[in-house]
């Protein structure tokens, strides 16, 4: 079984647009949306949820104010600034958005006023779509542990792929280079990096390629909207050549991409044209090189 992750470093370069189209073009695959804090792929795949799992991430400290004598030792022990007396309040309180559930406050509290509680930090889903089975998730807002939820999604996808005898897992990654991105990259066969011909795109491409190299993951690059600045596109191509990374094919700018999104459809299904042709070529290209 092969796994391909589509990532970008910079946000908004077209990861989800590409993944949705690949979902149309690829056969015998499972789709996984690993952007768990701002997932968008479902807006094009229209999944029908068949399985919903609670995701328990980090624990959270809970304070019994009746036992608290306001000694302040919890505030002092907490390195995440999650416990304080907020303006206008008279007692110590835990800010769950900052609490990382370490338990240092529980340990130092002599009044046993604080306990660690499990919390539901989000949900993982397995869904049917007209394009195949999809594993996805939604992290609750203001939660930590997005990397762990990404791993849950990937495990779900792998399990489904084994049960259904699928040969491919198609993974939509998150922007950035941090925890959730690394979790979406570990052990995959190919990272396809979507970039755009802007100085920011180039800067962020460099960093994400450093990450894939760091973890020893084979990478290929495609430049989306390459014609908004062809000079920069050349620069990116040259940069990739020097790094020994393939540039598979470039996609032109076309308002049809947004129109397809508004229609809730993958662009290759929505229209024929230069964008769809380019995406089909990319798909062919990465399959022949795999």
């Amino acid at each position: 079984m092969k796994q391909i992750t589509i990532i970008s470093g910079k946000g908004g370069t077209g990861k989800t647009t590409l993944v949705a189209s690949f979902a149309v073009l690829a056969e015998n695959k499972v789709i996984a949306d690993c952007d768990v804090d701002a997932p968008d792929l479902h807006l094009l795949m229209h999944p029908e949820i068949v399985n919903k799992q609670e995701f328990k991430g980090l624990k959270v400290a809970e304070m019994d104010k009746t036992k608290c004598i306001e000694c302040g030792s919890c505030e002092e022990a907490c390195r995440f600034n999650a416990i304080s007396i907020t303006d206008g309040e008279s007692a110590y309180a835990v800010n769950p958005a900052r609490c990382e559930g370490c338990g240092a406050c529980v340990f130092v509290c002599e009044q046993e006023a604080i306990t660690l509680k499990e919390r539901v930090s989000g949900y993982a889903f397995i869904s049917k779509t007209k394009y195949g089975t999809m594993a996805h998730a939604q992290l609750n807002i203001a939660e930590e542990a997005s990397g762990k939820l990404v791993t849950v999604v990937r495990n779900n996808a792998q399990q489904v792929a084994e049960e259904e005898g699928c040969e491919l897992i198609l993974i939509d990654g998150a922007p950035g280079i941090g925890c959730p991105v690394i979790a979406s990259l570990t052990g995959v066969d190919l990272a396809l990096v979507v970039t755009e011909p802007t100085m920011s795109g180039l800067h962020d491409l460099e960093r994400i390629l450093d990450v894939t190299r760091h973890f020893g993951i084979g990478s290929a690059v495609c430049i989306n909207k390459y014609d908004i600045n062809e000079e920069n596109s050349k620069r990116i191509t040259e940069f990739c050549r020097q790094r020994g990374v393939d540039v598979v094919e470039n996609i032109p700018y076309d308002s049809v991409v947004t129109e397809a999104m508004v229609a809730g459809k993958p662009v290759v299904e929505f229209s024929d044209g230069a964008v769809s042709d380019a995406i089909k070529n990319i798909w062919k290209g990465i399959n022949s090189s795999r």
Partner: protein
Amino acid sequence: MIISVASGKGGTGKTTVAVNLALSLPNVQVLDCDVEEPNSHIFLKPKIEGTKPAHTLIPKVNYDSCDYCGKCASACEYNAIVVLPKRVMVFPELCHGCGLCSMVCPQDAISEDPREIGVIKKGKSGDGSIDLVYGVLNIGEVMATPLIDQVKEEIDPEKTVIIDVPPGTACPVIAAVQGSDYCILVTEPTPFGLYDLRLAVEVLRVLKIPFGVVINKAGIGDRKVYDYCEEEGIPILLEIAYDKMIARWYSEGVPFVDAMPEWKERFAGIIGIYRTTRLHKINTEERK
């Protein structure tokens, strides 16, 4: 005053708004808290005056006093420390640096060592008008939040502070926006833009930070973001029409207010809207 610029969805124009707003106001400090992929410096072209490493703490075991009792391992919520018969293993990428292992150790055998997670750079924009501080997360590093916290320690209370927030809705976003007086949410009028805007709005409501919306690339997509803002009573602070010239300046790393100075007034106007709505709020609250 601290203004953060956030979005939920990536690539909607946070950095564009942060940088162009900064160039439209006097006495500004920009903090780029998108430490995974910082971009503000591409546009502000700072002369770097200082770079310092950012650290978290990881446990270090003193084997002369360790008796392998295993209390550190059972206390650790992240499974970052494992005690074997004659060895203690620490997994730095799992460690949150909370210090609990060192607190619980009956032998006092655990001290803490700094571990570099990234660097913080400081400088002034090319023309000297803007102070810039930005964090750069090390490659392969998972702990973005402590670096963001350390970037924010550089806040200059004498200045109007503009924070460029990472995309998403998870902990790095909270770390970046918390403590802001106001948040500008940048979105694009598309289904993806709207879905992620709703998530970002939820975050700000949980954090009780007042906010308004800037619609970037106006004219593409549909009207649903506008309908949503109207239903929810969210002020639309500014619309930036999709414009090939603006896209071109962006691609070159040039803040478009430099090329189109008439936009400075519009950006500065965002702060005017914030001030009047805040005044309005104070007035109505006083009346109650």
